[in-house]
């Protein structure tokens, strides 16, 4: 599949390239359009090979985990990536962290392409982009004291914090994420899930990064602890001017933390825009279905809620449908949907592009502030 057909109209591709990015995601960032984004991802593609033994030797198939994704991220901004299992949101995080090599595409971080950097430059880059993982039980080395876990980045990157100051800095970081400094001598198994996630955040902060990629950071946490971690992330952002890419399947969590949201379906962004645009004025049927399916803690209104229940199953990313990948579950699908892949363009001058031939504005009522 050609990566050209991803997020821009093929006919005016060149002019858009010159302008540097097209409509995709340059809107409603806290910094004006003129400012250079912190991160600009362009046509990111990641295919995983799958080997199938055919009758005449091995035939190679591909899982199209990410199939042409472009977005911008500005300084101090949070971009939420939301979608169902297998939509490729975590793969984006892993390729940006260089835990996986992308199949093609580019990601300009402060103007440098992350994907073409040498190994040595990647190490230097680690200082500026950090990651918080989903599973707080598996993401900390069980054999290392918390103090050593947090200080390890300084051992790996000498010269940032001198050895004699490390102890104090660890204590300060622990206190910043809401843990007592005495915890530095304890081991990860002595902490609860929420506390471990705080430790993970403290380690991510140790190198004073500009960007933190959070991959489902609260989905393994108990409900009463989720809010603590979300609030902590927001506080840190305001204080340190961090940018986040916040990946989650929980629409409510994503809304709470994000400035802008990109909705993903089968390796592509189907709609992107400001948080209020996506949640209050969705235009893509998939976004509308997701929002209507999300359970709201509101038993009074449940009878009146009109719910779009999608029929059928998520198609396989090995063999995605032609044209629009959502058409097999879409109630609006017509023949054009199977022939033409809809481009991600602003269809209502709302500043939020969506990839649907039949995009339609839906105004959702906001919940009253009880």
């Amino acid at each position: 599949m050609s990566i050209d057909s991803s997020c821009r109209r093929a006919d005016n591709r060149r002019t858009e390239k010159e302008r540097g990015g097209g409509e995709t995601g340059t809107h409603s960032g806290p910094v004006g359009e003129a400012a250079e984004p912190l991160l600009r991802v362009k046509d990111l593609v990641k295919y995983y090979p799958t080997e199938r033994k055919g009758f005449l030797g091995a035939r190679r198939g591909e899982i199209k985990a990410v199939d042409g994704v472009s977005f911008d991220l500005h300084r101090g901004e949070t971009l939420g990536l939301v979608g169902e299992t297998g939509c490729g949101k975590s793969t984006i995080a892993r390729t940006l962290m260089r835990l996986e090599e992308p199949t093609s595409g580019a990601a300009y971080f402060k103007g440098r392409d992350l994907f073409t950097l040498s190994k040595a430059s990647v190490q230097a880059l680690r200082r500026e982009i950090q990651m918080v993982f989903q599973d707080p039980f598996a993401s900390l080395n069980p054999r290392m004291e918390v103090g050593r876990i947090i200080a390890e980045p300084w051992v790996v990157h000498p010269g940032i914090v001198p050895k004699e100051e490390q102890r104090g800095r660890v204590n300060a970081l622990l206190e910043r994420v809401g843990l007592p400094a005495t915890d530095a001598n304890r081991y990860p198994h002595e902490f609860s899930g929420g506390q471990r996630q705080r430790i993970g955040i403290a380690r991510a902060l140790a190198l004073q990064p500009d960007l933190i990629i959070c991959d489902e950071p609260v989905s393994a946490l108990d409900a009463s602890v989720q809010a603590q971690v979300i609030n902590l992330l927001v506080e840190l952002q305001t204080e340190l001017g961090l940018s986040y890419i916040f990946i989650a399947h929980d629409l409510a969590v994503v809304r709470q933390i994000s400035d802008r949201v990109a909705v993903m379906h089968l390796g592509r962004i189907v709609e992107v825009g400001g948080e209020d645009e996506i949640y209050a004025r969705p235009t893509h049927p998939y976004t509308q279905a997701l929002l209507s399916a999300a359970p709201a803690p509101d038993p009074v209104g449940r009878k009146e809620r009109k719910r779009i229940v999608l029929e059928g199953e998520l198609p396989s990313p090995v063999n995605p449908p032609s044209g629009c990948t959502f058409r097999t579950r879409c109630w609006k699908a017509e023949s054009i949907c199977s022939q033409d892949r809809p481009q991600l363009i602003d269809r209502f001058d709302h500043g939020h592009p969506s990839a649907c031939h039949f995009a339609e504005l839906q105004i959702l009522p906001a919940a009253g502030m009880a």
Partner: protein
Amino acid sequence: MSAPLQMTAGDGPAARDSGEPAGNVTVRKLLRALWRDKLMLFPLLFLVALSVAAVGAELLAPHDPFDQNLRSRNAPPMASHASETSSFPYLLGADPLGRDLFSRLIYGARVSLAVGLASVLASGTLGILLGLMSGYHRGWLDDVVMRGVDVLMGIPGLLLALFILFLVGTGFWNLVIVFALTRWMIYARVTRGLTLSFREQPFVEGAQTIGCSDSRIIFRHILPNLASPILVLATLEIAIVILAEAGLSFLGMGIQPPAPTWGRMVAEGRDYITSAWWLITFPGLAILLTALSLNLTAAWLRMVSDPVQRWRWFMGRSESRHEGDGETALAYSEPRSSRTNMENSEPAQGRAANGDHLLEVIDLRVNFRTPDGLLNAVNGISYTLNRGQTLAILGESGSGKTVSAEAVMGILDSPPAFVTGGAALFDGIDLLQISPSRRRRLCGERIAMIFQDPLTALNPAYTVGSQIAGMFQEHRGTSKREATAKAVELMDRVRIPSARERVHDYPHQFSGGMRQRVMIAAAIALDPDLLIADEPTTALDVTVQAQIMELLAELQLETGMGLILITHDLGVVADVADNVAVMYAGKIVETGPIKDIYSSPAHPYTKGLLESAPRVDRKMDSLQQISGAPPNLRFIPSGCPFHPRCTYVIDHCSVEPPPLYEVRHDRSASCHRFEDVMHVN
């Protein structure tokens, strides 16, 4: 740990490693485990004695092991010494050259242990390094190493050793080299397997993201986590090497005479087996006991270092042991007053005998007896469910919501879990009292349960059709043909597309949502009166979740069955439940009609949960949050279990456990200040 119950599952790296985090802690844990398992003292003391003997042979041996005395040829044990140099008798007799057997055994221990330790060190280092490299880097190195392993594993080790020794000659270091070359693959295989799984762990990826070099990741992050399995392996290997060395010495290819080795002592004693039995018996015993002690030690190390094994081992103990532990660990006991109060409040929920009551749970208590003490999972909960109603049991991990349902279904893992009190009346029959066979019949026919993960709940070896049809064959004696026809009908009813074709497919051929439909089809096959759904949609995507919840609601409407929905998701509860019971630390803290509770919660925990939940339809400036974390069930706070996290807390709360107060005629909450909670909104 916030979720101690996870330990019962026993897998997952977190649970595995929580047992032995680091050097000093491990030593303390080992000593404690040793104290509990006093029998292990024997092999360990034997090994200690052996090591002391090997190190201090010069001091301990009563005679020179090379000192020949032809007058004492084959002297029996305890025979007095023939020469005047020493008055000490031949403790274990003398050999054909008149050498003291006991002294030779002590010197032999030095040889055996030295060969054993040196060989294990050499083969271990080689194997672990190769295993780490091939597991971490994979690629061609992995191919080469693993093919080498395959080839070497296919050749009998002793033959290979003999062949190499034949080429290079005998001697201590040659033996060590031979063992290194013939035993390394044991370590390589284990190390590679573990490394492969660890390199996918988030903590290793985390190390990558902070810029750790490969060697730092291998030696600082992966290697320390391999310590305990490798230690077990190495202990076993010492025994194997000592046995192999004895074998080689027996064949004359080990350490050369006159150095005393156990293997050659056995070989030499063979000729005198009828005339001087001690010559072969004592070295043989030494070999046997050493190998046995090492094997026992390895088995014991494996048990204490692996929580899953430790659990089983602990559970094999006699009941009296539990009680002993229970007395010391009883961290939480319910005061009588609150129990009576709770019963008083029950008429409010309509306790009186009533035909509508499908299930009535009264003061249910469950605890877990674990190696670390008693865990109070369910501490006296009561609820009722009427026909056609949906009761949601809402709680976080470790709140006891699943355990209480498993107790009702009679599917608790027992041990470690035990029902310690209460009743569960289903249509007047106490499910906790009836015989297992009667309960089994009841639970298939009239009560059914569906689980969070349909992939593990369905048997992967059978087609989905046969698993649904099994319900009819088992309980109704329906013929296979007819049962399959009914299975197709049911699959249609839960809206699995093209049911007729898919009835012969296996569970793995279905997606998560379809598998959950299969589970539901099997559960409703016999038209149960009660369906218990344990987090039925947690593993599913939000669009599929909506489909499944809609299906359940429709089925309930059609059949009039009662539904207990166990979940942590406030939104799911709001969508389907009539009544809700909120659980915290093994107790119901608030119960009543869903709409009332959501609009004016009476317990600070419920209120906190509702306020802290992010919403799809509104973005808040910042989320209200509940401070702290759910309690460890081994140490539930005194008084009200929620008081350390509560914003309404008063002195009274930490002393007096709040009873389940009647808030209104159909609502109750266990908070001393429920009135304040309800009115400050």
